[in-house]
């Protein structure tokens, strides 16, 4: 009995110390909370941390106490107390933890429902991942963007997909994440609560430049967001090449193709239009409109020598319209003229 009191005091002391630390320090363990979902996640995580702190104290407390009090004295070759177990105790420490984990599972189910249920008046943003780019489309407004703009305090449903491999949409301050899977569209609902700048970080290994598959996020007041929408919906003022430059940005082309002649994963675009080049199979072609179109839609068909081991996403044909292709080709052609 004396021992049980001693160990209980030790466990209580460790537990209270851990709880006191959690009380002041929990928020510092995590990024700021910037979405409604983040409050649910942190509440459930926080509750689990308190239980974890107690269980940690329980086991470590018993162990520490035993090391000190039940250590073998020098010269004592005897054995410990002889008992084989205690069925009541076993039942208790099976049933009580069962209850606790079931409680958390039920609670977690409710929270999951809270953070995934659609509200009316959602903003729809189509998010397309590709190696190694994020593209954001606002289908209600006909806008495409390389940066994600969101209005504060309004639920947005991100409809995630990918054109090549699996990516995962994650803004740590919003907490929740969802994979962007090729061939499927999955929703992720977020209601931002804090205006400011954040970063989407791809959370699923997606090849060479996975670390740098980032995109800026800007959460704005509703009026600012509406103003941004208006500015984007104005018809393009520049020519076809300028539209193409925008498309190259949004679709991540420039992640692999430089426009200043520097080396990168894919061939540079500077001054290639109208050039004669050798292909990987040894044949020689002239880079013209038809070749560029074909290479965007089916990049594996005519690979330029020296780039045999690079694979460009094979699926741009599905996300780019005929007009888009014209604009991109016009943009690349405009880079060719600069050289002369």
């Amino acid at each position, binding site marked *: 009995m004396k021992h049980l009191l001693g160990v209980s005091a030790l466990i209580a002391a460790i537990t209270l110390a851990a709880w006191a630390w959690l009380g002041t320090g929990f928020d510092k*363990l995590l990024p700021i909370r910037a979405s409604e979902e983040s409050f649910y996640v942190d509440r459930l995580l926080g509750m689990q941390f308190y239980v*974890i702190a107690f269980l940690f104290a329980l*086991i*470590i407390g018993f162990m520490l106490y035993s090391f000190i009090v*039940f250590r073998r004295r020098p010269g004592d070759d005897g054995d410990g107390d002889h008992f084989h177990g205690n069925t009541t105790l076993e039942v208790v420490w099976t049933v009580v933890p069962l209850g606790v984990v079931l409680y958390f599972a039920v609670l977690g189910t409710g929270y*999951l429902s809270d953070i995934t249920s659609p509200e009316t008046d959602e903003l729809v943003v189509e998010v397309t991942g590709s190696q190694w780019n994020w593209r954001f489309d606002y289908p209600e407004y006909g806008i495409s963007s390389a940066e994600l703009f969101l209005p504060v305090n309004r639920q947005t449903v991100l409809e995630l997909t990918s054109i090549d*491999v699996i990516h995962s949409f994650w803004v*740590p301050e919003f907490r929740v994440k969802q994979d962007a899977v090729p*061939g499927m569209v999955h929703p992720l609902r977020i209601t931002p609560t804090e205006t400011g700048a954040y970063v989407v970080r791809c959370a699923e290994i997606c090849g060479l430049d996975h670390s740098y598959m980032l995109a800026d996020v800007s959460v704005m007041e509703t009026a600012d967001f509406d103003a941004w929408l208006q500015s984007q919906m104005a018809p393009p003022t520049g020519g076809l090449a300028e539209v193409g430059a925008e498309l190259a940005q949004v679709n991540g082309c420039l992640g692999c193709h430089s426009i200043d002649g520097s080396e990168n994963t894919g061939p540079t675009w500077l001054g290639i239009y109208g050039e004669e080049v050798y292909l990987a199979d040894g044949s020689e072609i002239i880079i013209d409109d038809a070749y560029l179109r074909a290479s965007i839609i089916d990049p594996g068909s005519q690979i330029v020598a020296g780039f045999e081991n690079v694979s460009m996403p*094979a699926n741009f044909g599905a996300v780019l319209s005929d007009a888009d292709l014209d604009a991109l080709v016009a943009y690349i052609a405009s880079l060719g003229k600069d050289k002369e």
Partner: protein
Amino acid sequence: MVIFSLGIIRGIVGQIVGTAVGLILVTLIRLLMGLPAWKAEPAMIIGALIGAVGFMIGVGALSDWFKWMGGKETPMHHGPPTDKPAWTRYFSVDYNHKVIGVQYAVTGILLVLVAGSLALIFRTELAQTGLQYIEAATFNTLFGMHGIVMIAGILLGVGGMINYLVPLMIGASDMAFPRLNAFGFWINVPGAILVISALFMGGWDTGWTGYPPLSVLAPMGVQAFMLGVYLVGISSIVGSANTLVTVAKMRAPGMSWFRMPIFVWAAVATSIIQLTATQLIGLSFLMVTVERVLGMGFFNPVLTAHAIEVGSPPGNVVLFQHLFWFYSHPAVYVFILPGLGIISELLPVFARKPLFGYKWIALSSLAIALVGFLVWAHHMFTAGMEPFLRIPFQFATMLVAVPTGVKFFSWVGTIWRGKLEFPTPMLFVLGAISVFLIGGLTGPPNGTVTTDLYLHDTYWIVGHFHATMFGGFIFPFFAALYYWFPKATGRMYNERLGKLHFWLILPGFWVQSLGQIAVGLLGMRRRIADYDPALGIQNGHVWITVAGYVIGLSVLVMIYNLAWSARKGPVAAANPWRSRSPEFQIPSPIPEHSYAEAFVITGEPYDYGLPGATYVAMNPSAAPAAAD
């Protein structure tokens, strides 16, 4: 040629010859079909498979079976070879389970060293933000290689413990199928060679999970990795079948199921998983191989030119993850159940007390093994499977905590009111409990979907599973190495170096683990070569890297200790730990035939502190000449 008397040399030559035969065969067939002669990937696959067969023929693992086909008798040879030095038996096919156990364990340690060294390379890179020492492509290959080589090393370590200990503990003279046992060990060697050779085939960038479509598009190294895993998987399947038959049929008289040493229960639970789940990882990797070379679109929804050519319909990405995790989740219980068995096995000896709640511990291993089959999709909460399906998997996952908790409480009950001694094996057992506690307690937040949506694919997960692997395998495995070292070598390890090893690795691991958990909570993603210092995780990474080096150093201390002590250590007593287990009632080192005569089980295994209780009734003629 003396060197060719070593089976492993003949095996490697066989693998090289077999690989060449495969390359030539594919090239010839292509020539005959009028295709361009050289195509690297199919040639490499056929080369790898024939190379593996070449290794097994060269090493001699198939010799007896070939002779049987020819109707020849192959009497079992016992003891070291007569025509060459005794040590050569460890480098050749040998049917003694103790030799095979040592072969497994030593190969496992080698692979763990390789995998750990790879981790130190990319940990050095991660100590600072930006890229300093290696390129992103190298980084990606290294973390995938670290993962899969570590898994192979752990599987071999598990095989070492089971092969060495199970026959000894149940009083069997050997495993039920000694030739299959040798085959099961040796097939790992060409497998490991293949996996490591991926480094020289362009590496791969998918991590050890090999998710398509990335693995369908990855460099050819992914193919070497998947075929290597396939071979290691064959070892798991034949080894586990052997273990189950051995335990079921070859126990000493009087040893009922509930009188077996508790480690044997863990071995049984592990073997059930290995025998029934390993096929699924083999299948899923084979499907990726076929998708890559034959264009069958199982997984990739975006058809490659090759797939269009062969008329394949588009595939389903998520299907792969179901197949993969149906093995790869239960696999983690393959890694940890034997280690938890070691903890339960050693605690009573050093607490001088019966194991608290023997039946509950034994059945909790089975419960973990069975529930472990129902939780695989908790790796896929963000993957895009049917959303409501996440709920049943959430409930099943949380249930795993219950039998795991039973183990913790029973361990605490075992040391309570004991008389604790702290030699190196006991320190490692207690360290294992503390580390496994970190791993266990960080589990449930991944089990509830809401919180997992944040934690998934972050360093929180990295910290969680490293703690379960270290607490559930690495620490108990080290405990087992020190504990049974005198029985295997007849000499004692150096206690002072053993304690130094422990007092380096324990704080080292705690810092590493808590560091990983902390940077993960702050937003550090898994599998990235470079990170954003704005997250406030720079210092954490320095701590993790330094701790990684301390862990590496501590393991070198252990290897020096064991290598030196095996030749120069003080001669060991038959029963240095005053254990009641059968293998400690016979001389050290254990004789070729273990038990000169069969023994009978007359009591409970862990009746420490009960005067006059016996567990093993040895025939007097088999008892050690001098007990101390």
